Every structure is written in C-alpha cells, then in structure tokens.
C-alpha cells in the first residue's frame, strides 16, 4: 500500500468520524488541513481542548494529527465507542422466492444417510441473518491481528456464505431493533476462532519455529555447561570431585528445566476476539420443515431456502457445529451428525 493511500484513508476516515459523531469538518482546497467544529464532549473525546480545532496530516504541536503512529487511532477508538453505534439492522425486500419447488430443492441438496426424510411444508418468511465482524488478536512472543467476519442465519444458527452484504445497493435500514444477538454470538465466535486458526497458519508456524529454535539454543547451551561441569577450576586448577560434578550437573539440569518452562510461558498464545460490528440483514427465505425418521424415532427439522444465495442453506452438525449437507442421525434423539463426527 502506498504512502498516499494510507494518508487518504486516514483523511476519509477522520472526516466521516467527525461528521457521524455530530461535528462538521471543512478541508482546505489543497487537502493539507481542515477545521473541525464539534460539540464539547466530542472535542474532549478527540483529545482537543477547543470545540474548533485543526485537523492535519503533517506532524505538529496543535490540532488533531492524522497518522497511524500517533494517538489518533486510539482517540478514534474512544470516539467510536461513545458516539457511533455498532449494531445495525437492514432489510433486503425485493428478492424472488420460489415456494413451489422446495421439496425438490431439499431432496437434491441434502443427503440423509441413515434415515428417512419427508418434506412437510414450506412457508415464505423474512429471516434475520447476523453478520458479525471481529477484531482478532493473537498474542505470543509477537502479535498477529486480523478482521474476521461471520454471517449466520439467526434462526438456525447455521453459517451461510454471505459476505459483502453491507455493500449491497438495495439495502433498506430497518426501523426496529435486531433480533436477539446473543443466540448467534456463541456460534459466530466458534466459527471466528476456526477462521483465525486458518488465517494465522503462517504466523503460528513462525512462532512455533522460533520457539523450537530457542529451545534448542537453551538445550545446547546447558548441555555445554553440563559437559564443562567436570573441568578443573581455571584459577585454582582444582579438579572437582565426583560429588561436586554430580551436584553441578543436577543444578544445570534444574536451571535448564526452569529456563525451558519460562520459554514455554513466553511463547504461550492468547487470542482475543473483540466484536466490532453486528449487522442484521432481513432476507426473504422459504422455511421448510422436514421430518426425519431414524428407526422408530421421528424429529422435525427446519431448513431454509435462501433467496440471496438462491439455494438451500446447510444444517449444523449437532456435535462439532460444522455445516454440511450430508448427515447421519443418532438412534434415540435423532441428532444430526456430520460425516466426521459420525465416523468417531
């Protein structure tokens, strides 16, 4: 990314931040600096003493300096938290829904491996989908960060491959609050963790390799010390006794263990997922009830035909929560299992 693109991102962001937080900002024609006029609490949040202040991209003593290196990003975080809501609800209305052929859609999409399935009924409805964005930080001897997004059907909890919904042209803001977000948060976190592991593979491997290298370095060093434990004292030339050698070697061994333990502690990973944004999208869908019969037991599952995807959504495995179109069912409770969990 070029220098100018970072700078223009900062300028664009700062302008939107001030304007969305209740202030106004006016850039000079050459784009070098702007004057912002904001309410007192916003000024304070942005670290300014006056309600009117300069905004600029070049370092200086006064005003709000837009740079990645200074405190601007932190001030912006505080301002966003207090002034800019992070939960939104939107509707996507004008999508065609095919109610008539839902039975065929279910049959051709799903594989019921050890059960009989009977498509009962389908009804057109608006289904809420929750799109979560998480800021993920993986901390070890170094830090890795990413922005991970997960979209789920809020009714079924199933992850759906819908991205970029926020950029859709025909998005209509909803007037009422979103549905219960706590129902999808757990599942979204679970999926975000898996995605984090996937995205951070290189980082994890690098840290693993460094830890191994450091362990080897320590082991080599203390092994060398062990070898030296039997050598005579350089100054006095006194040759150590067998007891002394044993005692020294024991001490070195203990020291190595302590060092390795410290090293492992230093390389421990901790990952933090911070929800940044939740957007609920209300999308037309066909909810289809399917009766599954496993031996004598029966259970009804609801699956969805998604009007955005124009196809059936998968179901979740009851054990690992992974999505699939291919299921086995348990005997008594008729719980759906993916091929992996069924194999276990």
């Amino acid at each position, binding site marked *: 990314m070029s*220098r100018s693109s970072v700078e223009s991102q900062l300028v664009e962001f700062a302008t939107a931040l001030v304007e969305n937080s209740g202030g106004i900002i006016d850039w000079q024609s050459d784009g070098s600096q702007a004057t912002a006029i904001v309410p007192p609490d916003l000024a304070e949040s942005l670290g300014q003493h006056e309600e009117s202040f300069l905004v600029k991209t070049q370092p200086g003593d006064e005003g709000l300096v837009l740079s990645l290196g200074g405190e601007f990003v932190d001030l912006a975080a505080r301002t966003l938290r207090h*002034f800019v809501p992070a939960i939104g609800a939107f509707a996507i209305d004008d999508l065609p829904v095919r109610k008539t052929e839902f039975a065929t859609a279910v049959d051709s999409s799903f594989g019921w491996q050890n059960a009989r399935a009977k498509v009962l009924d389908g009804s057109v409805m608006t289904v809420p989908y929750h799109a979560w964005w998480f800021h993920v930080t993986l901390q070890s001897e170094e830090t890795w960060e990413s922005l991970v997004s997960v979209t789920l059907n809020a009714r079924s909890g199933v992850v759906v491959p819908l991205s970029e919904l926020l950029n859709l042209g025909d998005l209509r803001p909803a007037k009422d609050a979103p549905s219960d977000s706590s129902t999808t948060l757990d599942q979204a976190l679970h999926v975000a963790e898996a995605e984090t592991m996937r995205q951070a593979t290189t980082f994890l491997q690098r840290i693993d390799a460094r830890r191994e290298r450091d362990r080897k370095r320590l082991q080599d060093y203390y092994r060398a010390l062990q070898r030296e434990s039997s050598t005579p004292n350089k100054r006095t030339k006194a040759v150590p006794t067998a007891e002394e050698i044993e005692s020294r070697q024991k001490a070195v061994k203990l020291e190595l263990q302590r060092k390795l333990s410290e090293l492992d502690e230093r390389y421990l990973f*901790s990952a*933090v997922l911070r929800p940044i944004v939740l957007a609920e999208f209300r999308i037309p869908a066909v909810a289809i009830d399917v009766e599954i019969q496993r031996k004598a037991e029966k259970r009804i599952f609801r699956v969805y035909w998604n009007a955005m995807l124009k196809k059936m959504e998968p179901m979740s495995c009851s054990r690992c929560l992974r999505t699939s179109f291919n299921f086995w069912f348990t005997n008594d409770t008729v719980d759906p299992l993916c091929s992996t969990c069924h194999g276990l």
Partner: protein
Amino acid sequence: MRTKIAATNSLFDVNSGKDITDDSAHVRTSFSPSGIPIRFRTDLSEFSTTKNLATREQLQLHLTHTRLQLLRGFDELLCLEGLTGVEHLPHQIETVRKVMRRFRGRVLLADEVGLGKTIEACLLLREYLLRRLIKRVLILVPNPLVSQWHEELSSKFHLDFKIAPRTATSSRDEFWATHDRVLVSTSFARTGRRPEAIASAQWDLVIVDEAHHCRNRATKLWKLVNSLQRRHMFLLTATPVQNNLVELYSLLTLLEPGHLKTEADFKKQFVTRGNPRDPRNRHRLRDLLGEVMIRNTRGLVQINLPPRYAQTVIATPGEEESQLLIDIQQYLRDQLATAAHTNTDDAEQESPEELDASSTESADAPEAVGWDQRLTSRAGPPESTSPAGGPALALLAGPTLQEPQDNGPAGISRMRLHAILTSIGSHPATAAATLQPLAERDERARQLCERAGRISHSAKDEKLLHLLKESHEHKVLVFVASIRTLHRLQSLLMEAAIAFSTFSGEQSSTDKDAAVEQLKSSVNVMLCTESGGEGRNLQFADTLINFDLPWNPMKIEQRIGRIHRFGQTQDVFIFNLCTAGTLESRILKLLNDKIRMFELVVGEVGSILGNLDDGQEFESLVLQLWQKAPDDQQLDADFETLGDTLVAAQEKYLDAKNLDEALFGEDYE
C-alpha cells in the same frame, strides 16, 4: 470488571434481556501446529455503548477503524513492496517487526557482521517513511561508507538523501533545517560549527552506522549524537563493546537515558570489580539489553555459508605490454610533476558525466557519488580533520598532498587520473580508450594510445582463457569494471569458441533475466559488470573471476557476495587476475597479505575500514599514495604503511568482535 462487561452487554439485551456477562463462558482452547495451547477469549469492553441503530456508513466507519488499526499493527510491512535488488532474509523481517512493535523505533541493531544491519535499518527507514511516521531523517556514517549508503538507499530502497556538502553551507543552520533527508559522515558532522547546526534542527529519525564510535561519552561524536533532537534512533554496530562494558552503557544511554540508571549504578550492578570487561548479573543485564538491543547471530538465524577459496593469478605481461604500463605511469608522473609548477586553473576540468561519456565508461557508474562529493569540496574550505586514523592517514593529511588531492596533475583531472590508472589495470584496450581524449591534444598520449591499441591479447587474456578451460565444469561469473573491457572479453571468448552470456548495466531487465537463465541452463560463463546480477539468484554459480579489481574493497566484497551468500550450497572459488606491476597487484597484495580479505566474512571489510577513524575512502587513499610516490620503491613503502594501518584497524575490530562474542554469544537475542 464484571460490572463493566455487564454494562457493555446491555447492548445485547435489546430484545432478549439475556445476560452474557460471564466472559469466561467464551474461553476456549485450541493448539498451534506444534501443540502450543492457544487460549481464545472474548472481549466485549470495546463494543460501542451507543444504543441507537447504526447506519450502513456508521458500521463501515467501525470497520475502517479496525483496518487502520491493523495497518498500524505492523504485521503487514509496507516497505517490502517496490524494492530493487534487496534479498531480505527472514531474520531481517523479524527484526523490522520487532523494532516497530516492541522497540518503538529506538534500538541498538547489533547483528553479527554480514547479517544485514544496513538492510534492516533501511527497511525500517522505508517502513516509517511510508507510514508517514517520520519525515526528517539524519544518517551518520563513517566517511568510507558514505558513498555506499547513498548508492544503496537510492538504487535499492528508492530513497533520495542529500549528502552534506563539504562547503560552508553545511555549517549553517538553514541547511539542516531545510533538507529533510541528509546523509553525512561522522567525521565531517562532528567538526567545526556543524555540531551546533545539526543539533539546531529537529529530526524524526537518526541512524548512526558503526555506532561503536559513540562508545565514549567524552568524544565529540557522542556529544553530537546526544545533543540531537530526535524521536527515533537506530544505532548500528556489530561490536557494541570494544574495550569495556561502560561503552555499552554509553551507547544505550544515547538510546534510552536512564534505562541502565547511572554509570555508578551500572558498574555496581553489572561490572565485575577489577575487570571492566567481565559482566556480573548476566541474566538481569541480558533482560535489560533485550529491551533496547537486537543481536542476530549466524548460529541464531542459521546462516552458515560453505567455505570459499581465493587465489591470486598474477599475469606477467610481455615486453610490449610491460613497457606500455611503465610508460603510461611515467607519463602520468611527468604530468603530476608538471602540475606542481603549473597554475591549477589550467587543469582539465571535467564533469563526471563528461568523463563517463568520453572514456572511462564505468560499467555502472557506481562511483559518481564519491567523486562528485570530492569535486564539490574544491569549492569550499578544506575539511578540518585530525590524523587519528593511523600513520598512513597522518602522512596523507599533510600539506604536501593536499594540493594534488584537490587538483590533480596539470592537464589531467583527478578523475581522469583515476580512470587511466584503473584502465591500465583492466585491459590495454580500455587504457587506449581512456587515453583517447588526451591523445587529441598531446602527442605523447597519442603514441601511448596507439601502442595500447596494438596489443591484441593481454597477459590477463591468456590467463582468463586458461582459467575458463580449467573451470569448464563450473558455472563462472567473470567480473569487469569497465564496459570496454567487457566488450573486449566478448570478442576474446567468441574467438576462443567459449559460450557465454552477458549481464551489464546497458541491458534491459528482460535481457538481464535472459542472461541469468542462459547461465543457469546452457552456458557456463557469464560476463558481468559491477552490478552483476544484483537482486537475482546466482547461487547456482560457484566460481568468480575478478578480471580486474576495483580499488574499493567493499566493491570486491559485493562481487563475492553475489554468489557467496544465503542459499549457496557449494564451495566457492574466487580467482583474482592482475597484471604484475600494476596498482591492482599492490592492492591485492595488501588486502590478501595484510588482512586476508578473501577469508573474511562478507561485511567485515566495512567494519575494518570503518575503524580507519578519520579515514577517507580506500580508493582515494590509494590514489593519493600513487600521486605522492615519486617511484615504485616509495610506492611500495607507502603501501606497506597503509597495510600497517589496515592491520591495526583489523586488530581493533577483531578484539572488539571477540569481546562481543564472549559477552553476548549465542545465548543472546
């Protein structure tokens, strides 16, 4: 904590009223590929506390902010894009990340020699500049390294720096205030009124190369660096401790005053009484150093190169060639003698461009910077330096040499003098071309030019053909300094039916790639000019022939570094061709016999030359010696003295290196 989260979580209760305040419910554990536990935790405290519904733009604002945070996180380095010929190694990238994240731009980079401290510093510099974290940068380097830094910053990192001119301008505050990127030699910066002028300006970043010269707090250099107003600072040295541990204290005090408390505290805690080189409380000291210093070692980064073997091949010239060499040098000496009696205003005045275009045809024009700098110095007052660099330097600093150094013999500029002397060390055909402009106005030069042109095969030509035939099972790079020599060798190899490819600064990038590919697949020889394959992987070649020898040892080292580098798996063979009786043969003898240069690790030559404290560039020293010596006998004696100075500089370096290895060893990172 619980209260805070509960308050935050009211967001989630808009409809459900559910309480998810117990964040321990969100703790899960996964494992890295090698089994290190990864503890996942959810933090809701940063989530917006505003209850209104967000618009699409407001949500996007949150996401943009997070993306900016990620950019700030330095995980994705911006500096790696758009570099030319920089083969950055994993430990260098790791160092850049560490300095950005952990050290906050104040660090002592103390990698072992040859691991690329300069690359690390330049990557960091570029990263900071690209992120607009800094604007004004001052780089302080020993005099012999100024040209190399300038050239590498420009050609590899595309960063233009102004070299402080050796004129009165540099003593004015305005110069330092108005130029945002300045490169200056430490010896020049610390003398005259310049320290005050440099200190009057504010710097975002100061880089000090060979920073062990700042080890003594009583010196002008330490005081200069300490007085600089700067936000970030990189100190670069492979040998932070040269004599005693207090030097380390002095260096780190420049970076983080108070980090090691007072000198008395430091000595009390960390220096063994009676032995200032022996540290106490090593672990504590190591921890403290780890907060301000990075030291990569070969063992740590696992770069162990295969051995290399160097051999000098002296070509004894035939009678005609031998006499020509003598006569050209005599001609130049006569010109020099005449100069002493001639008004210097009559001296030939040529710009580097004119000289380059007319005759020298330096293959890649790498020296333009250094020469330009010296030409500029003609206009200003002579630099005030002390002859602290050893006996040879003291000798050279005397008044007898100042005149010829600045002006050169009458009728011949100093640049042309250098060009002619190097050309006769390269090839008679090149010497003829270099003499040509003089031949147009001087009968004696014309005759010499004709005689040089008549020599179809030089003694080195024969040696080269012999070597190539002997090395037919190896991939060979033949380095030349002059494009004319390159053309001559092309003809020679064609006549001898030896297949080869050519890599020179004249070619397009595509042609260069094709030349390397040819060497890899279909031919065994590649003729190269100085830029020889920079940035391209040539480690499949294992033999290097220096057909001619640059006077600057760093350039010789750069040539070697093209194949004796990370990724080389075979033993490397180096053949240095030189004609008996030339200056090159003396330089080679000096470098080989005195400091055993060809056995040194890449990078060590720079450290040794950097120890020529007030030193000039090596090639400049050589030229001065030649100018000063009335005959070969005196020249041999002066080279001997220069050799002693080099040995002293090397001993100083080795002593410091041994001490640093003992102090930091493999157990330090």
